[in-house]
């Protein structure tokens, strides 16, 4: 493993380390923030810069014409709703100075690098009096005020519940000669920022719950100031964002627990990871982690499920990719009416999805809390530590994590570690969902440049996960798993790109895989195999003459001279590549005596013909019998059978028949 890691010929990770010291007060009556920040920024690029670019993402919720709101097509992110119900949010920088007192605010101007939308105020630029050379640092002091919106896209308030994300002026990423990479806030993507340290002091009323990125380091009650009765300080290292939540204790409860590797790693998982990755148990050792779950008082019964899911996620991702390095993970389940806050990843701080309904049958048999918790935790890896540019290559976050989450959930449910109403495997569900889409599309596009949000989700989540599942099938589970681990270990705490990912995989797997990535990720090529024709001809059906080496003889006679008494068959099997995705595929030939033969085809040509002579007939031909090509959703013509088998069909029809009979049950008595 280490040798493989050393052999990866990719650029070493480059990331800047910033430091944000912040003080913020929440006005719970008006849902307003008043903040100050002291930032130390270092130019990690290779050229000087005279500008600083800032994310002011709360302004995405300032009017209905921002780039973000246009991207939502008038709706809210998760629930049905419309902008008419919005309570707008915004942020305003009230002062910005350098350490020597130089005012930068006067030079501030809004910029729209992605779409030129004049109604968008999510990116601002200030001009520095002097260029900052590579390696040099700046200290900036900023004051700002912000109005939280009514909860939308994981930010804002619902009643007394506050989820405060994308709330402070945050620097973009300076990429040297490529300039500043600071995208506007789009509906489909959230993150691209440098790593840094955060030390944030939060003032809220007394008797309030606060949870945030990082760990709580001090807590102080201020008895004489009811509106700022509690001051909590959080600290986090090597993270690229900071989010927090605040709500009255009467609404939200805090449950503290932990992840103990000796107790919480299933032995079967450890053995499998060790065997597949070629690492010893000692090399797979994981550190303990503190768990903090913040749930509505009414959902306290769900807290053990969130804790269990978090433990499983820490164990699974830790074993397969590398340890979760932070001392704490915080999981928040938003209360009712704050559903928009659910299902979100911030560094060391995730929001899941719960409801009191999930405490009673049949809803309690659903694995939604586990799926969402595990998915959002997975973003600690694919976004939190592997901080790719989500705006430009969202699939590196959502797609890789969807693959990992699905694999994790398969393991969790297979071992009975979470409730689940089994209606097909998680991979099957992903294939089916993807199969509903009829229009080909490319994965590797900017997040805001898809035809629709639906297509963005399909490409960035499902199609990428299925592409990786396909790759896993093609290169083998072991090589795939090792490549994923090397990718994580090589690029954690940096900003890997798609090219980095491709390079690691080609290197670790030991073959050029660009043929696959170019088609699966960078094109809309579709996978479709088909059995075109299977034909049997009895050898003794031969007519005319045949050359036996000495003379022309009757073809029939030449057969009769053979060792078989006319029971031999010339079988022609024609396979086709109906899709435009080129790659190798297996086919399984089933013979009438029950035996099987596996053959491979490189899939380069549009079709291939195999002619074989056998003393037995073929009964069935199946292309891609193992389902390696998870990306293929048109599977009907992958199967050919001499005689129709009714088992699968009967099974399927049975479900329909029973459903109709249940309909009859409801109607028969109704006069």
């Amino acid at each position, binding site marked *: 493993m280490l040798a493989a890691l050393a052999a990866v010929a990719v650029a070493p990770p480059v990331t800047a380390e910033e430091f944000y010291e912040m003080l913020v007060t929440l006005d719970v009556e008006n849902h307003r923030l008043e903040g100050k920040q002291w930032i130390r920024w270092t130019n990690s690029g290779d050229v000087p810069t005279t500008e600083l670019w800032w994310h002011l993402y709360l302004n995405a919720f300032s009017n209905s014409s921002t780039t973000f709101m246009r991207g939502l097509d008038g709706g809210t992110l998760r629930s049905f709703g419309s902008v008419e119900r919005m309570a707008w949010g915004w942020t305003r920088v009230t002062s910005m100075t350098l350490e020597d007192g130089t005012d930068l605010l006067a030079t501030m101007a809004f910029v729209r690098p992605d779409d030129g939308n004049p109604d968008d105020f999510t990116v601002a630029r200030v001009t520095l009096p002097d260029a900052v050379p590579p390696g040099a640092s700046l200290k900036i002091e900023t004051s700002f005020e912000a109005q939280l919106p009514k909860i939308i896209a994981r930010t804002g308030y619902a009643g007394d519940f506050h989820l405060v994300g994308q709330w402070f002026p945050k620097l973009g990423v300076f990429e040297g000669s490529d300039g500043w990479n600071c995208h506007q806030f789009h509906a489909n993507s959230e993150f691209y920022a440098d790593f840094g340290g955060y030390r944030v002091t939060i003032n809220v009323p007394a008797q309030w719950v606060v949870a945030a990125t990082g760990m709580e380091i001090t807590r102080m009650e201020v008895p004489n100031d009811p509106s700022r009765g509690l001051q909590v300080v959080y600290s986090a290292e090597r993270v690229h964002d900071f989010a927090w939540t605040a709500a009255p204790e009467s609404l939200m409860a805090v449950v503290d627990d932990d992840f103990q590797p000796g107790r919480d790693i299933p032995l079967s998982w450890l053995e499998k990871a060790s065997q597949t990755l070629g690492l010893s148990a000692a090399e797979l050792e994981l550190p303990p982690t503190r768990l903090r779950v913040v749930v509505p008082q009414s959902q306290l019964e769900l807290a053990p499920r969130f804790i269990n899911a978090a433990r499983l996620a820490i164990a699974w991702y830790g074993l397969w990719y590398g340890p979760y390095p932070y001392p704490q993970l915080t999981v928040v389940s938003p209360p009712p009416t704050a559903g928009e806050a659910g299902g979100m990843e911030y560094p060391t701080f995730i929001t899941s999805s719960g409801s*009191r309904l999930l405490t009673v049958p049949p809803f309690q048999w659903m694995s939604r809390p586990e799926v969402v918790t595990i998915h959002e935790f997975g973003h600690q890896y694919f976004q939190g530590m592997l901080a790719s540019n989500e705006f430009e290559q969202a699939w590196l976050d959502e797609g890789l994590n969807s693959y990992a989450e699905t694999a994790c959930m398969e393991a969790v449910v297979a071992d009975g570690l979470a409730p689940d109403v089994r209606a097909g495997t998680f991979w099957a569900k992903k294939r089916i969902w993807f199969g509903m889409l009829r229009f080909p599309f490319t994965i590797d596009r900017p997040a805001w440049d898809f035809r629709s949000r639906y297509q963005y989700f399909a490409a960035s989540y499902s199609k990428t996960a299925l592409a990786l599942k396909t790759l896993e099938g093609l290169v083998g589970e072991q090589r795939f798993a090792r490549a994923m681990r090397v990718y994580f270990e090589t690029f954690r705490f940096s900003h890997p790109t798609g090219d980095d990912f491709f390079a690691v995989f080609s290197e670790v797997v030991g073959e050029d895989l660009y043929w696959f990535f170019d088609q699966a990720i960078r094109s809309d090529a579709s996978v479709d195999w088909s059995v075109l024709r299977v034909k049997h001809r009895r050898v003794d059906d031969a007519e005319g003459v045949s050359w036996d080496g000495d003379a022309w003889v009757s073809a029939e006679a030449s057969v009769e001279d053979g060792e078989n008494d006319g029971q031999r068959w010339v079988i022609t099997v024609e396979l086709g590549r109906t899709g435009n995705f080129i790659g190798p595929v297996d086919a399984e030939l089933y013979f009438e005596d029950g035996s099987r033969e596996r053959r491979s085809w490189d899939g380069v040509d549009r079709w291939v013909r195999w002619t074989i002579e056998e003393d037995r007939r073929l009964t069935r031909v199946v292309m891609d019998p193992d389902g390696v090509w998870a990306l293929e959703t048109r599977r009907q013509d992958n199967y050919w059978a001499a005689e129709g088998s009714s*088992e699968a069909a009967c099974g399927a029809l049975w479900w329909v028949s029973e459903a109709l009979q249940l309909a009859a049950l409801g109607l028969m008595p109704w006069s």
Partner: protein
Amino acid sequence: MVERRRGTPSPVWGVRRAVDLWRLIAACWAVSFLVFAPALLVLRTTIFRALAAVPGEAGAAPPGDIALIIIEAGWPILPPLGLAVVSGIVVLWLWTVLWHAGVVAWQLWTGGRRVRLGEVLGLGMVAWWRYIRLSLTALVALVLLGIGIWLPLASAIRTSLDAMNEQRMMLLLVVGLGITKLMAIVVWIATMHGAWLLGLPEYRSAVLSWVRGLGSAIRTPFSSFFTWLVWLVPAWLAAVVPLAFGIRFDGLRGSVALIVLSLAAGLVRSICWVGMFNSFAPVTGLVGGAEDEEAQTAESARATDAGRPANSDSHILPTQPTP
């Protein structure tokens, strides 16, 4: 010859009438399967063919393949399939109304003498439109009651959610679902009472009959509910048992054994529906044994010859009902 009870539902009476109406039971059984035959035929000609080459052994096809093939083959046939299903549901509804009307007429006009299925259905045809109106009345009542229950409940649930009070929301949901269920049962029972009243000459209005039926249901809550439950439980079990077997045992799906079980379950359901409906008949039928029955048959024949309805001496049917 015919006496009228106080209108108390009786499962025993339902059993007796169900035995007499075995042909109707068989017809209900056949219809419940036949109405969906076009839909299954559409599926069979497409899905069955599409899946024919897929190995049937569990795990032989990669996960998701069968569902993907169903989607692939089923997508183009959704319109005809939808039409087949909807038409099946409509036919089933019309059939149910028809045999309900027929059974009422058969019971009230002939005193329940043994007749051919065609006669029962023929009698039903005469009153069919009135029973359609009764069915629609019940549907409207159900919708109105549903709206009446859920409008304030939805508002209260919304208020609870705004206050982030999930306990109250859950309580309201449970109460709402409970009341809705109870309401559906009451409407169902009221409709069965009303169906029998609608057969009486003094009840021409479907709405009035249904309202009176509701009154009957309220007057006899325990016997009505008990009777309904006695028939519902086996009918429900008959629907669930084959399904449970199929879910539990993959290999049984589509097998002859499960098909036979489903057919048997369908028969049980038909018996239950016919028995349940007859249990709500407000008459006890012919009094006496075989002699009485023979006498009744002879009387019916004489009455028919004389151009008046059978049992015209009954105090239930003083005059010939107007179709």
